[in-house]
Structure formats: C-alpha cells, structure tokens
C-alpha cells in the first residue's frame, strides 16, 4: 500500500512556506509547488476519500490541512469564493491547475481526463 496511516507523502509545515499576505495568493502559490495538491480539513471524511483516491492510483498528493493552519480559514474562504459557494473541501489542484471539488475530480476520472492530467504534471508514470 502506497500511503499508510497519516503520512500523506509530502506533508510540509506551512509556516515555512509562502509569505504572501493575500490568502488567494497563498493558495495559488501552494498549489503550484507540487504536482498534486489537496486542500483538506483533517476531520473531513470526504477529504479522506479524495486522498484515498489518489493514493490508490499510485499518486503522492501534497495535502494541506486547512484546520491546522492559522490562516487556514481565510484560505478556505478564498477557495470557496473561487469555486462558488456550494463547493467545499476537498479541493484539488493538479499541475497548478484547479480541478475542483470531489464531484469534479470524480467526473474527470470517469471521463478519462484525470489520468492524462496526472501524467502531464509528472505525478503518474506509465
């Protein structure tokens, strides 16, 4: 099993990262730093499902738990604004590009567009 327990690949402490004051800026910066980025909330079970999906495909996602970040609330709001108010975590970026919330991720996996995106971003090899 690729991912076990709570260690989701690169779990980087956010305090060392981007110094941008604008939460949206921060989101974008974080999103572009890894091939697959998931903005999550540690207690959210749908986020767990998203993580499991990528791990099951052999992908190593970078996960940011917004509830464990002092500025997570702002970032969550920025993400909600970006996606429209009905969307909520988990929110996935691949290769710096916004994919969306869980339903968009599932839809793109089913219609076959997810895997090419992952390969393009270097998260998946044949």
């Amino acid at each position, binding site marked *: 099993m690729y991912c076990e327990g709570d260690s989701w690949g690169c779990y980087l402490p956010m305090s060392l990262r981007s110094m941008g004051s604008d939460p949206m800026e921060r989101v974008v910066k974080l999103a572009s730093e890894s091939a697959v980025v998931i903005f999550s909330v540690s207690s959210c*079970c749908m986020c767990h*499902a*998203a993580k499991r999906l990528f791990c099951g*495909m052999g992908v190593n996602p970078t996960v940011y738990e917004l509830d464990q970040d002092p500025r997570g609330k702002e970032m969550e709001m920025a993400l909600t604004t970006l996606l429209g108010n009905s969307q909520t975590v988990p929110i996935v970026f691949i290769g710096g590009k916004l994919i969306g919330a869980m*339903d968009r991720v*599932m*839809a793109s996996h*089913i*219609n*076959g567009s997810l895997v090419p995106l992952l390969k393009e971003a270097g998260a998946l090899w044949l």
Partner: protein
Amino acid sequence: MANHHIPYALLHGMNVPTSFINQEGSAFDFGELEEAIVLQGAKANLLTGRTAATLEMFPSWPMRYQQTPGSSKSGGESTDSGSALNTISSKTENQFEPDSPISKKASSSYHQAFDQQNLQQQQQQQEMASDPSRTGTSLNQSAPIVKPLQEKKRASTSEKQLDAKTLRRLAQNREAAKKSRLRKKAYVQQLESSRIKLTQLEQELQRAPSQGLLLGSSGGGVGNISSGAVICDMEYARWLEDDERHMSELRTGLHSNLSDTDLRLMVNTYLSHYDEIFRLKGMAAKFDVFHLLTGMWTSPAERCFLWMGGFRPSELIKILISQLDPLTEQQLMGICSLQHSSQQAEEALSQGLEQLQQSLIDTVAGGPAIDGMQQMAIALSKLANLEGFVRQADNLRQQTLHQLPRILTVRQAARCFLVIGEYYGRLRALSSLWASRPRGRLMSDEQPCQTTTELQMVQPSQSHFSHF
C-alpha cells in the same frame, strides 16, 4: 409616456385606497375590491359628478405587481416562498411540510409544495385583473404617490362621506372573505396530508408480506416512513413508468433500424431521463438520507446489491461487457478502463464512508467526558455528512452512464441502456415473485407443484421477461 402607466384614478386625483394593495400579505379578495369601488365611487361622485371608471382604476396589477421586488408584501411573499424553497434544502426532513406532492416532474413535486400557495394567489388575482392588456411598469411608480393619498384617505373617512352602515358592511365582507380564504387553505392542507397518509398506509401494506405478516415489525408501522420518503417513492414509481416507455421506444428504434442521428436523439433523451432520477435522489437525500442509504426506495432484490444508496457502477459495467458482444479492441479498452476508474472511485468513497462510520461509532459509544446532549449534537453533525457521500455516489453513477455513449457506437449505447433497464426490471420482478411465493404452512393444503404452476402463470404477464 409616464402618464400612461399611472393609474387613471391617480391621474384624476381620486383617492386610491391602498387596502387593496395587499397590506395583509394575503391574496386579493372581493371585500377589498368592493371597498375600493365604493370609496372610489363616493369620491368621484363628489368631485366629478360621475361614477368611477372602475376598469381604469386597476392598471397592470396584480400580475406585474407580483413580480415587483420590494414594492409590497405580495412581492415580498413570492420572494419569501422562493427563499423558503432555497432554504428547505438545508433543513431536515422534520421541517418539511409538503402541501401538494402532485407534479409532472420529479423535482417540482418538492417545489410545488411551496409554489402552491403562490399559484393560488396568482390565479385569484388573474381572475380579478380587469385590464390584462395594460402592460407597463408596476406600482413601484405609483407607490410613492399612493402613500400620501392613503393619508388623505384616512382623513377623508372621518369626513362622513360614507355612512356607518356601508363601512360596516364593507368590513364584514372583508372579514368573511378572509375567513373563507383561511378555511380553504386549511381544507387543502388537510386533503394533502391525508393523501400522504394514505400513500404511507398503502406502502406499509405492500411491505407487510415481504417482512412477514406482522405489521409494526422493525421496518413497518405507520408513521415510520417520513413524508420525504413517501414523496421519493411516489416520484420513483412515476419514473419507472417513464422508464418503461423510454425502453420500448429504444427497443422499437433499434429493431426498426433507425438512423444513427435519430437513435442518438433517443439515447440522449434516455440519458436525460436518468439525469431526472439522480435529481430526484439528490432531493430525497436532503430530506431522508437513510431512506436512500438503506435502499428502502428500491425493491428488496436490488437492495441486496446496494452500494451507497444505489447500484455499483463497476458491477453494471461488468454486466454490460458480458452482454455487448461484438466490441472492437478500442471499445473494449474504453469499457475496461471505465470499469477500472469506477472501481477506484468506489473504493475511495467506500473508505471515506468507513471513516465516517468509525467516527460516528466513536461518538455514539461515547466517553465519560461527553455529556448526552453534546454527544447527540456531535453525532448529528457527523450524520449530516452522509448526504455528501450519497451525492458523490450518485454523481459517480451519473458520470458512468454519460461516459457510455462516448466510448461506444450509438447502437451499442442504445443496447446498453436496454440491457440496464431490463436487468433492473428483472430484479424488481424477482422481488415481487419472491414476496408473493407461497410459504409452506401459511397456505395450507397446497401441492408442491402448485408453486411451479403459479410461477408459470406469473411469468407471461411480466413484460420484463419478454426479451429473454
């Protein structure tokens, strides 16, 4: 141009009683109309010595009026109903009080519960509108003019222009009209709730055989089915009827060698038909997620293979692969890849749900530190996440179905949908047969061969078997 839109009465400086501008927030009624006419007539007689041109007194209202934002209570009311509709989605089933579940489309049955009231008002007002041809802006313009007139009106009634008798009669008419409105509303509500109760009872009776003859067993008992569940089942039954129709259309379409374009149209129609069931399930999930999750909305045999409130997409694809024989290499790859992706997605969702269940178990099992009410509150908020999982599962099902015509030819896609429809039809038939099978001692003096005879008798009547 502006004058054209101002009511005749106002143009001529007549008093326009504002009582008919829905201050009670309820529908227009005769009492108020009569009052308006009488007051109008009295004033007009005084001023101009002629009876009022009552027709011109009522401009584009009430139809326009209804649509005017913020000009009055009535407009506010439509908005309120609309927002009530929007907020209903965030409320639990307990707060849902359907007035009229009758509808043509699945989704509108929930909407109609709130639109019913609006509709009645609009219909009443439509009947009353004496000058429908007059368009133009609403009373927004006239509202500011009317207000000072209203004050004038108050002053004028003390001028003894109308005798006490007339005033009293008008007031009584108003009251009577109001009372009859309320009575009618109460009656309609009573009818609707009786209808739902009746459907509940019917469903309980239907379920009784399959759960043993004891009514009031674990799943049974009147009132154990929520009204949201009842509506869900009603709409699902209607959807199934539509499904039969679509399927026979597809069947004839395939056998009569329709052109690909025509067939594609049929396939797209069928896809929209499926979109409809997912829309319905989405709403049902808001009102009664357990009804979906436990599979009580489907037949027992389907319930057996239930995954997250519905069919398992990868299972369905497996069935299709076995039924769709001549597949090209590319198509086979496409279908297998679809199956694989679906399996991965199902696995992920299942694991997410498992984590939710575990978390719920931990909460309900509880620790000494948590007090009862807080424990329940936490458990409730966790339960709320169930809806999200059912929705994602349905999303997965919907996407899978939509993907089929993309990777197959249109004929194959049509055949796919037929296969799917027939498969579930057979499962439903199986459920009915199972439920109505003789059960030893309960049907005394029966020969063993009677079972087979019964099965043979039942079989031809099942249209689902016609394709075998």
